[in-house]
């Protein structure tokens, strides 16, 4: 006899048998999703009527409907759903009962909300000392900005990424697909796992307090370090740093800054290549030579054919020389397509890559060959939707689709009925009173 | 205009809660294009049980199914400026607006009648509230039980030994909803004639107070208070229930029968009396009722004028009369205990003794009369893979029959149809409105 899906989830996964109560909105969806992908039993606790975030587009076939949000689908695959209003007295009691069954509680309410409900960590800890409570908020649970309102873009700004993104003649730019909340959710999952490991060894749960602003700051690479080490000096030279260079990168130098292009138009879109990584190190030099060879095969290397890349140093090259090289390379790029570029990059290690559109990604043979995509049946839509698959591959505990994203309150009968033993009358009562 | 539908050219915006759902259901069944405007996430009435196969789910509420047949559903949040903008666009296309918000709510949202009339001068707006739009209790809250209490119906529901009883199935809400459907159509006729719309203020309390039978006149003329008497009738104290033999509730072998007298002018006359006595006698259960004295008495009991005269002219004789009626009822009652309710019903009705039986819901569903008239109808619910049997229409119109053409809508089922195809909003706009909690 085969194993049921639930048994498989327990046996062949890293978090099988662990339960997560996911109270988050879009600020924290990714946390629960990540744990669910590792096999945890993540129960999305939605307000009766469904998460507000089910309203976020895009929608299946562009039909704005709470059961058709692709955004929600993407963030809630592998979770189960119950409806519960913790603000009602009954809901409050039920939640406390559920806490006993939970290993994790994830929430993204305003700081203090759970405490006000009498469900703050100090309360939960009394009920279930093993429980880990993870709170995801824009700025953390304490501090002068803890009550600041935020949106994804505000956090992108406050976290410092927006400042240096964009073009000089235009205000700083966000990314068109909101990202801040994903970072917050991912760091929350990481913090939860730290606490999980500790709990598993000691039996002690704890509270994990996540700041999305900080999570965003952690994508800044070296912006902070550059400011600390170079900032004042550059400021004295009236160099704005990091600068919004648009398609270009402005390299700070003691002399004048160097402007080099990063994003290049090509035959069928854009590609990315930088003069700044074309000299100096052995790898860079090899990359540049390979590129020139490719140009040469197309008869377009021109005077770069014998260029000495070993001597190319971005600290000393003049802007004129850089522009000259770029004009030749740029002409070549216009004649090649993204796919050719990528092929060359794989084959000869040129540091070059296509700027993929979403379509390019979905049609990228490499991902197909790796079996990245997962087809998930949505019987209610009478359709199959292709989802991005595992974030890492583990043969011993393979990623799986345990459930398609749940319908609103889909697992009320399982959790309330089968597990908590509520009789039907009680379920009806709770539904009518808008508790579940 | 759809020749099959009485109200086929009428569009109704339905902003009603439980007090008004039946109103818009009736109009939808009569062919009006009723657009149920639900809050994003669904109307709270969808939480009401019972549920399909007892699965408490907003798309499975039988309560909702029953009260929303033929309607279309959109989700729209009037709390938002955009929601109100869209609503105003829709309003231009509507003939009727039916709502049950607390008095002043729509006004506060800038959607009071005077405002909406500017947008759509022919608009008829019907507001249904517990106590109406004016008066000291206008802001008082009420559920059905408070409506039937304040309207006077509850006081005489039930038996004297029990507390007053709230009748089953929200009769206060039904009274209000039915009053509203009638009022709205009266206004529609006026609009047909003159093009003029108007505002209608319907009060649940007053709707209930309008169905109290003789209660009010008894107080008005006699200062007598009608109180609960049990046995399916009411009596104005201190007037006794003397009217006719076998008048009210009697137990029988498998349930209850309710009489409305025998031997009166409207209950078969003496011919009926004789048949009844013969039947009882054939089983040796007529006792002394076979005697002529009782036959005469029975006829007198069926004569209201006689009883009245007797009371005024011969108080003693009257008291006597009442005692005798009790005797008749006792013997008939004993006999009925040996018969089943349908046996009694089907036997005595052809004798023009107006008797009925207390039917359980199951009895009603299995009733051969209703079956013969094909009262119940089957409605497809494709999402549930089921066909559900519904009660049919309260009336049959020869040219424009009311009927269930479509099951109750899913949450926002017609958003695209209405917003995209009719109001011309783009999918991008709609996705935005969804995200903003507008639709």
């Amino acid at each position, binding site marked *: 006899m085969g194993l049921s899906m639930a048994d498989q989830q327990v046996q062949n996964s890293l978090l099988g048998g662990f339960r997560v109560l996911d109270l988050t909105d879009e600020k924290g969806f990714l946390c629960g999703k*990540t744990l669910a992908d*590792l096999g945890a039993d993540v129960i999305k606790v939605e307000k009766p009527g469904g998460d507000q975030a089910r309203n976020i*587009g895009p929608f*299946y*076939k562009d039909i704005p409907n709470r059961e058709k949000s692709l955004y929600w689908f*993407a*963030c809630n695959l592998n979770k189960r759903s119950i409806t519960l209003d913790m603000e009602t007295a009954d809901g409050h009691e039920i939640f406390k009962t559920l806490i006993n069954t939970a290993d994790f509680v994830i929430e993204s309410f305003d700081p203090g909300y759970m405490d006000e409900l009498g469900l703050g960590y100090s309360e939960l800890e009394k009920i279930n000392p093993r429980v880990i409570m993870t709170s995801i908020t824009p700025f953390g649970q*304490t501090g002068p900005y803890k009550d600041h*309102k935020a*949106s994804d*873009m505000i956090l992108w700004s*406050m976290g*410092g990424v*927006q400042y240096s*993104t964009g*073009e000089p003649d235009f*205000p700083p*730019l966000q*990314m*068109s*697909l909101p990202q801040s909340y994903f970072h917050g959710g991912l*760091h929350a*999952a*990481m913090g939860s*796992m*730290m*606490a999980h*490991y*500790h709990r*598993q060894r000691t039996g002690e749960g704890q509270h994990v*307090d996540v*700041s999305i602003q*900080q999570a965003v700051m952690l*994508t*800044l*690479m*070296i912006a*902070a370090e550059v400011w*600390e*080490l170079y900032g004042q000096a550059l400021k004295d030279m009236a160099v*704005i740093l990091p600068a919004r260079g648009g*398609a270009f990168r402005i390299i700070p130098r003691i002399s004048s800054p160097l402007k080099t292009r990063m994003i290049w*138009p090509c035959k069928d879109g*854009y*590609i*990315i290549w*930088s003069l700044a990584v074309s000299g100096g190190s052995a790898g860079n030099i090899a990359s540049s030579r390979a590129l020139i060879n490719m140009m040469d095969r197309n008869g377009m290397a021109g005077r770069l054919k014998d260029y000495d890349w070993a001597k190319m*140093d*971005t600290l000393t090259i003049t802007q004129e020389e850089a522009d000259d090289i770029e004009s030749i390379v740029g002409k070549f790029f216009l004649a090649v397509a993204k796919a050719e570029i990528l092929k060359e990059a794989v084959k000869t290690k040129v540091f070059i890559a*296509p*700027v*993929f559109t979403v379509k390019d*990604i979905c049609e990228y043979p490499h*991902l197909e060959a790796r079996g990245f995509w997962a087809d998930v049946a949505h019987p209610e839509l009478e359709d199959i939707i*292709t989802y991005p698959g595992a*974030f890492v591959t583990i043969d*011993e*505990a393979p990623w799986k689709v345990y459930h398609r994203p749940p319908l609103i309150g889909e697992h009320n009968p399982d959790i309330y009925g089968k597990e908590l033993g509520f009789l039907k009358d009680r379920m009806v009562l709770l539904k009518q009173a808008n508790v579940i | 205009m759809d020749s099959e539908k009485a109200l086929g050219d009428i569009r109704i915006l339905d902003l009603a809660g439980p007090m008004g759902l039946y109103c818009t259901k009736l109009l939808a069944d009569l062919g009006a294009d009723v657009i149920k405007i639900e809050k994003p996430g669904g109307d709270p009435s969808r939480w009401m049980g019972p549920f399909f196969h007892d699965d408490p789910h907003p798309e499975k509420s039988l309560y909702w199914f029953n009260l929303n047949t033929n309607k279309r559903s959109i989700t729209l949040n009037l709390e*938002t400026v*955009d929601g109100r903008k869209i609503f105003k666009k829709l309003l231009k296309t509507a003939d009727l607006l039916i709502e049950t918000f607390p008095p002043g709510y729509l006004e506060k949202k800038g959607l009071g009648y005077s405002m909406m009339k500017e947008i759509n001068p022919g608009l008829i707006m019907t507001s249904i509230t517990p106590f109406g739009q004016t008066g000291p209790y206008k802001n008082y809250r009420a559920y059905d039980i408070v409506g039937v209490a304040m309207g006077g119906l509850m006081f005489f529901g039930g038996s004297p030994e029990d507390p007053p009883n709230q009748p089953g199935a929200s009769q206060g809400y039904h009274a209000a909803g039915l009053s509203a459907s009638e009022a709205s159509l009266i206004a529609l006729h006026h609009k047909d004639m003159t093009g003029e719309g108007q505002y209608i203020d319907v009060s649940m309390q007053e709707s209930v107070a309008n169905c109290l039978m003789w209660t009010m006149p008894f107080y008005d003329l006699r200062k007598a208070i009608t109180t609960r008497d049990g046995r399916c009738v009411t009596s104005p104290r201190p007037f006794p229930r003397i009217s006719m033999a076998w008048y009210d509730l009697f137990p029988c072998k498998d349930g209850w029968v309710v009489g409305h007298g025998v031997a009166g002018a409207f209950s078969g006359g003496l011919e009926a009396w004789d048949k009844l006595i013969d039947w009882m006698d054939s089983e040796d259960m007529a006792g002394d009722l076979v005697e002529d004295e009782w036959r005469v008495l029975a006829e007198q009991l069926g004569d209201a004028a006689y009883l009245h005269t007797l009371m005024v002219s011969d108080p003693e004789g009257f008291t006597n009369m009442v005692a005798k009626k009790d005797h008749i009822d006792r013997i008939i009652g004993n006999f009925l205990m040996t018969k089943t309710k349908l046996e009694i019903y089907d036997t005595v009705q052809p004798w023009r003794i107006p008797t009925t039986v207390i039917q359980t819901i199951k009895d009603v569903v299995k009733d051969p009369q209703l079956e013969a008239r094909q009262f119940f109808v089957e409605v497809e619910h494709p999402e549930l893979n089921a066909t559900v049997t519904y009660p049919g229409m309260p009336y049959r119109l020869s040219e424009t029959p009311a009927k269930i053409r479509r099951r109750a809508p899913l949450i926002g089922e017609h958003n695209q149809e209405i917003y995209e195809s009719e109001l011309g909003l783009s999918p991008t706009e709609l996705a935005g409105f969804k995200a903003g909690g507008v639709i």
Partner: protein
Amino acid sequence: MKKANQALNGIKVVELAYAGVGPQITRELAEHGATVVRIESHRAPDPLRMMSPFKNFESGLNRSAFGACYNTQKYSISIDLNMTKGPAIAKQLVLWADVFLDGMTPGTTTKWGLDHESISAIKPDIIYAGTSQLGRTGPDSAFSGWGYLLMAMSGFTNITGRPERTPLNVVASYTDYIAPWYMVIALLGALDYRNRTGRGMVINQSQLESSLQFLSPALLDYNVNGRVMSRNANRHPYAAPHGVFPCRSSETSTEQWVAIAVFSDEEWQAFCRVIDKPGWIEDPKFAGVLGRKENEEELEELIAKWTEELPAEQIMSMMQNAGVAAGMVQSPEDLFNDPQVKHRNHFRPLEHQVIGRHSYNAPAYKLSKTPCDISKPGPCLGEDNEFVFKEILNMTDDDIEEFLVAGVITTEMDAPTAPSVF
């Protein structure tokens, strides 16, 4: 040296990785109590060590803050795995370790006998974690490059920018700041799983696939609706105003911007009052998001006229006091001055023996009972040779000297000249 009560006390990690992803994975573990040994070599140093910013603009293997800041709390040893005896040392570390992190280009560790098959053979319950840009399998698995290239391939570049202009990168190698955390999560799950079952495992990461998780709504939109998401500047489908506005700047060398996002009607009304335009509340042109979206350009111009006159910080607090979401578009300098960032103790200055005092990033989360420990700055290359060889590998001074002489243990003498700047 380690705090007694940390979540990952006792976990032992060997790291063979460079650049952004691998080092950040182990840094996260080290900060929470794991003992991490980084295998480096002066002959092929981690390129980050050769990237700016440097102490006093002067390059040097131990002068880069970039090279330091991903290695907090770690131990660095310098051995050359290309030398015959190099891999043997690494294997000893494997025997000691719970986790082996392989962040090299696919195939690199095979030649050293440090691929997952080889090390599993000597240590069956090891957790092997391999990370690379496109994964270990598939036709393009050999692709290797910098994070900014992967950013372009994972679609983020194409959705950054203005609709009518070219796509743009964010300054960072974006995917380098998504992939590591996924690996940490998987590793922690695997470690607990191992404690429960005694079984080790192999975790392989394609950084592309990890990063695509952040693109999933757009991927579904294409797969279902055929829509190719594109660039939309700062616009939001259901919010207006939603953008970044210029503010008054006190210094010519800095620009000041404030981000403002107005979603609900209440926020819009509050916003109008803050910018002293109560008349807009009733103005049908701006009524509802519908109205504001239709007239967004005009609205943005009008708002900019107001914001230009005030410093960003003041606008932020005016807006926030009224309940409108607003935030400064913070420059790195602003981040250091941000009272919230200070309150969260995000930047942790440590005294680096070459660079001097400079800041390290703290994690974005705080664990209430087992807080992180950030006390050891990123090590100089080979800084912890002695500790590791003696305390962990129980080598004698003689052993060490032998390795030194053989060139297995590298020193500054082995370093290449002219590190590049980037």
